[in-house]
């Protein structure tokens, strides 16, 4: 029985190493790309965030980071990274006072807001609305696509197991998705 337990642990741990995200079932929305006023606008977000919501409501401080990258497609050559934009948000639920403290960043400047309704926060935290990525005229003509990486991190970890906590990955969830390709310039 003990041996079975040991082997079970080994298998579980190996599975956790290889695919740690399987514990979370969130999904990233396919980025919607639009060009408005000579700018590439991106709309994306996370869906199926029930587990993250539960975690947040249990009082765990979470950081959600969206990294939106623009790549130019090259044939017979790795795609060229053009520009990226990082959208970082921190949410913490105060169990006693029953409100959510949301921090968003305008550049490096944090802006804190308090909410009592999670439905409002869901849109604020897990959705990315109309992010202007780059001006079209600054881009060379060609085929492009947008890659969105959504990461979920826990903030400061309790030092219950001492230094061993340092070996627990800070990023608990990392999802990536690529948009459909779109053309800029003559070929577009």
């Amino acid at each position: 029985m003990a041996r079975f337990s040991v082997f079970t642990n080994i298998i579980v741990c190996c599975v956790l190493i290889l695919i740690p995200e399987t514990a979370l079932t969130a999904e990233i929305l396919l980025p919607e790309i639009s060009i408005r006023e000579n700018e590439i606008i991106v709309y994306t977000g996370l869906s199926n965030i029930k587990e993250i919501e539960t975690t947040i409501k249990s009082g765990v401080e979470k950081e959600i980071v969206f990294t939106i990258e623009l790549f130019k497609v090259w044939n017979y050559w790795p795609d060229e990274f053009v520009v990226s934009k990082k959208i970082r948000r921190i949410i913490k639920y105060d169990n006693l006072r029953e409100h959510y403290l949301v921090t968003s960043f305008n550049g490096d400047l944090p802006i804190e807001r308090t909410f009592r309704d999670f439905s409002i926060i869901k849109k604020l935290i897990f959705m990315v609305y109309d992010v202007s990525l780059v001006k079209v005229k600054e881009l060379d003509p060609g085929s492009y696509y947008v890659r969105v990486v959504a990461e979920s991190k826990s903030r400061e970890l309790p030092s219950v197991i001492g230094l061993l906590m340092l070996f627990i990955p800070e990023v608990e969830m990392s999802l990536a998705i690529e948009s459909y390709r779109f053309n800029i310039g003559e070929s577009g």
Partner: protein
Amino acid sequence: MKNLKILLGLFVLSILAIIITGVVLSYLGIEHGPLLIKTGFIFIIVNIILYLAILIFFVVRNFVSLYAEKKQKVIGSKFRTRLVVAFVGLTLIPSALLFVLSNQLINSSIDKWFSLEVQKPINDSMDIAMIFYSKERQNVLDYANFLASNASNKGLIDLNKFTENAKDNFKVYFLKNPEKSDFIKNVFNVAADVEIISSEKGDIIRAFAPVESRGKRSGVVIVETLIPLEFVTKMESIKKAYNEYNQIKIRQKPIRFIYFFMLTITTLVIIFLALWFSLRIAKGMTVPIQSLAEATKTVAHGDLDFRINIKRDDEIGLLINSFNKMLDDLRDGKQSIEQAYMESDRRRLSMEAILESINTGVIFLERSGNIATLNNAACSMLNLDRADMLGKSYKELLARIKSDDLSSLDRLDEKDFKATEKEIHAYIDGRPVNLRVYITVLKDSKGNFMGILVVFDDLTEIITAQRALAWQEVAKRITHEIKNPLTPIMLSTERLLKKWNDNAKDFGEVLKKSTKTILKEVGSLRNLVDEFSRFGKMPKINLESTNINSVIEEIVELYSDLSKIKIITLLQDLPEIDVDRDQLKRALINLIDNAIQAKTERIWLNTSFDTSLDSIRIEVIDEGTGIKEEDRNKLFLPDFSTKKEGMGLGLSIVSSIISKHRGYIRVKDNEPRGARFIIEIPVGGR
């Protein structure tokens, strides 16, 4: 060069460790915890894993190498395999047990963390805190609503004036202008609400309720109460514990994995370090043994210059040093032996050269009695083929030398054989030879019997020469004897002539005396001439087929009248041989006369036929005075006589007669007294 390789390896490993550390840091993130400690800790762990991987590689390589050696049956591999298997067993079993137990312990501990016993108090504490805050909120809100609904018409409060209600330490405000904040505006427009504001004094719970007057909202009642700081601090502690617990709960599986990972790494490090050391120990024990075995093999093939180049200061080192010293001694010993062998060989060659060049026959018999050495002279004297005789028993040699005198030499292979010197007469392929033989027992320095050395000289020529010399002496003596009577004859004749010329009166008397003297001396001369004439007739022998027994019988008949002498015959059947009957008879009569003169009372005449020697043997035995030892060698020489009146020719004539018949005569003592003359005449043709 080796150090350079090690340094280069360490450098490469360090670079690799830095790269892997970077990758791991990138994966884990750098926001939590002190970066320096985190980086250092990860770097150490990465290094441990890297060195563990190298250790595993070397251990596995050693195992593969050991397996290959065992397959190839390399010397020492079996012993090493047994040692390694023992070490593996001793390492793996306790380590595996410890690993399982530790893993169970860790899992059990982690299970305890998340057990209901731990979880429930935390949750309950948090629930209490939440209920408390919730209730406070509700109380404040209820009171605010109450005041708002009764504010204007019932005059419970004095609007636009701050009142401090005694109830629950509430503070009450009435706000006519709700434009102060979004929250109040929202309350004014929608419904009552509560907010909690943290301050230095504690948490302020503030409720807002809109006041309606005549169907129109006229303001907002604000009721607030303070939760003291010390109370808030306690609640915050509960909240913090609850949140941390939830965080850990979420990371339950990674924590389990971290512990499992660390335990596995530690166990692997222990196991493979132990295996590595066990392999080193096994190697440390088996390599010198292997070297010793290979060295023994090499030395067994004759290479004494081989040395084991392993320097150690333990017992194995002592063994190797002793082995190397033994090889030194062996090499020195071998060199000494080779030098001694070369010296011995040189001496042997010199000895062989000497042996081959001398005229003396030399035969060396081994302890077993087999012929080990046979020189040229011996081969020549005995007419032997060296190759044919070497290694054969001395008895075969004796069988080829036909001699009665060798009968006493039938125990040459016995170590208690006494050294002897004797003269023997033998027949070598029918040729009579006289040999003087010296037989010596050879012993080593400790007195151990080594063998028999037989040295012999061929005296045949010497004896012949001695005889010739003797005959010269005889001639001189005869001349002298002849001269002796001539002088008195000449003197007597001259005296007679003088007396005659002087017409001496005593001529008659002188004539008488002189004539008597002349006659006497002439008589002596005649006797002398007769004696010499007899001797001179010897060579003329007339051979005829004769049975020697008949000759003996004739002789016995001649002496039949002698009353004082008894002649006893013991005659065996003999083959007829060619002899000069008269000469032989004369020789035997001479021997019988000598016996009679030796004052014997009985004479034995024996004949026999020796088939091995193919010779007829005649013995004349008496019981007389015998022959002195010192006279025996000269007995058959002319001019030697033991008698005063003897001419010394009798026995020499006998010897001459026997020699003419290719025979041989010798004399021995007769027991208890007397002499024994032995004549051997070969039967074979001349």
